[in-house]
């Protein structure tokens, strides 16, 4: 029977609340670390793919120019009905100067097939039905919303999303419009909760038309921010650096907090349990056994807590579908946010554990075993 394991089981059973408290600290630290980093690397991957995929597009951050007649037509669709108000709500929010990202992408019809194939869309109806306006809603994490209807154009799908709907209505212009409301999702009660990203894709007859349209929109709507293919790289890089620094600072603070809690805990434990540790030593436990018996407890806590934190972060607060959307939709390496997120937690955990074990070794190396015999009545 291994002393370290035997002692670990008893230690946990006798200190349930302390164990639970420390576990929660690790879970919180892991979430606070992995969340921002996951977002960062997800968004960065997205941004990089934006540049590669939409190099010929102008991107205008703005409220969306969706007119009421189009919305009315679209709102007849099953499933999408509940989503439309959220689109409008998003547009209104943006119009009120609040931060919501509603992006419009312009793409020429010649680029459309490759663009939409990226989305795993059936491009046949798009390329063959010029003069039609397509509006589609990808609904991630859907429950309770029935799949799309039966008309041919409604077979448009959005890759791995759990449900997707699309509708074609005739347009007066020579544009295709495909609205991809990718992060809006609905609960089982049908309530729609807005996500952070909402894109409108406008397919024009050629790239010149796209530029003209973008310029026209910018001129019409004073104050819109305009990004062109020439300046998008520089702005993305600047935004990346700032965001990364912010995320790293946030992650560092959360780790410093977690580390502090553990160091305080260890110091307290070693002080309050010195008699117990001395007794074990007097009964024959080697310093190695004592260090391991303490380390196993902390390693178990940090490992279990980190895994729980990651699962909670990626599985609940940043649903897997969110990661999948980035991976599938924007051809981002599907694993990159996950890998970076895991690394963000695992590397500090390993470094953290190494420091903790070093502290334990140093402290237990100074254990005065004679104190086993020195207590007086």
């Amino acid at each position: 029977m291994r002393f370290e394991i035997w002692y670990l089981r008893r230690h946990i059973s006798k200190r349930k609340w302390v164990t639970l408290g420390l576990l929660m600290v690790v879970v919180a630290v892991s979430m606070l670390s992995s969340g921002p980093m996951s977002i960062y690397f997800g968004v960065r991957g997205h941004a990089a793919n934006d540049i590669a995929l939409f190099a010929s597009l102008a991107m205008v951050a703005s409220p969306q120019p969706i007119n009421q007649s189009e919305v009315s037509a679209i709102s007849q669709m099953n499933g999408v009905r509940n989503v439309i108000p959220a689109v409008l709500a998003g547009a209104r929010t943006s119009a009120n100067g609040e931060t919501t990202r509603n992006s419009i992408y312009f793409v020429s019809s010649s680029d459309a097939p490759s663009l939409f194939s990226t989305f795993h869309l059936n491009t046949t109806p798009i390329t063959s039905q010029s003069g039609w306006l397509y509006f589609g809603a990808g609904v991630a994490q859907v429950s309770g919303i029935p799949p799309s209807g039966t008309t041919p154009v409604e077979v448009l799908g959005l890759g791995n999303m759990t449900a997707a709907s699309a509708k074609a209505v005739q347009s007066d212009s020579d544009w295709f419009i495909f609205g991809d409301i990718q992060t809006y999702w609905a609960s089982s009660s049908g309530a729609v909760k807005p996500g952070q990203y909402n894109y409108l894709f406008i397919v024009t007859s050629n790239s010149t038309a796209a530029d003209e349209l973008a310029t026209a929109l910018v001129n019409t709507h004073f104050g819109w921010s305009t990004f062109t293919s020439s300046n998008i790289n520089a702005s993305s890089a600047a935004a990346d650096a700032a965001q990364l620094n912010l995320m790293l600072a946030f992650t560092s603070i959360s780790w410093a907090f977690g580390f502090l809690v553990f160091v305080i805990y260890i110091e307290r434990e070693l002080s309050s349990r010195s008699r117990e540790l001395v007794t074990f030593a007097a009964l024959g436990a080697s310093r190695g056994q004592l260090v391991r018996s303490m380390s196993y407890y902390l390693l178990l806590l940090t490992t279990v807590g980190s895994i729980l934190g990651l699962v909670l972060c990626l599985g609940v607060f940043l649903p897997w579908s969110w990661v999948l959307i980035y991976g599938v939709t924007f051809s981002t390496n599907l694993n990159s946010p996950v890998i970076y997120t895991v690394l963000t937690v695992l590397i500090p955990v390993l470094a953290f554990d190494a420091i903790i074990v070093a502290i334990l070794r140093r402290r237990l190396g100074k254990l005065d075993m004679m104190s086993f015999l020195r207590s007086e009545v």
Partner: protein
Amino acid sequence: MSRCELVMKGLVLDSVSKAYDSDQVLRDASLNVAGGDFLSIVGPSGSGKTTLLGIMGGLEKASSGRVEFDGEDLTAFDDRKLSAYRNRRVGFIHQMFNLIPFLTASENVMVPMVIGGKPAHYVSSRAMDLLDFVGMKGKAAMLPRQLSGGEQQRVAVARALSNEPEIILADEPTANLDEKNERVIIEYLQWLVQSGKAVVLATHDAALAQRAAKMYTIEEGVLNEI
């Protein structure tokens, strides 16, 4: 005469001294302890008897002199070997019992065996046997705080015997006990001597010390056999 026959069995202290900085607490102490011996070391508080016991038990290193067990020099042992010595060769009984407060009586008895890597089934069965021997089987699941002083000391005796050590080092084992429990503990020690163990009893109580077959006094670090 073969080399094996030259090796002194048991524990041998030869001119052992111990100083903490400039404080000399033990001066040239020498004694031999072998199986079946019952030694007592009597002296007032601060005379050096606890330090002597610590050196004998591998808890403390001597500043000078030799400490040997079965011919092996304890002072040359590394942490692992010294820990094994404490675990298998020596059993401690202390006035404060030194039981682990969050472990039950049976778990406390198990500790030395678990540290020594004994198999689980053996550990639990031997712990119960030992508790039965000291009359504590019925209280095996109790925590130390739920036991009286005498009961705690009996658990400590069971723990000291768990790995069948050759030497029992008892430091004021009856200091916290009433007369009845004191008698019980002394009976256990005497039984251990009869069964071939060596018992070293450190006490400030001269009457108690006289129960041993061989008696030493210690004063200001100087050990003398009476």
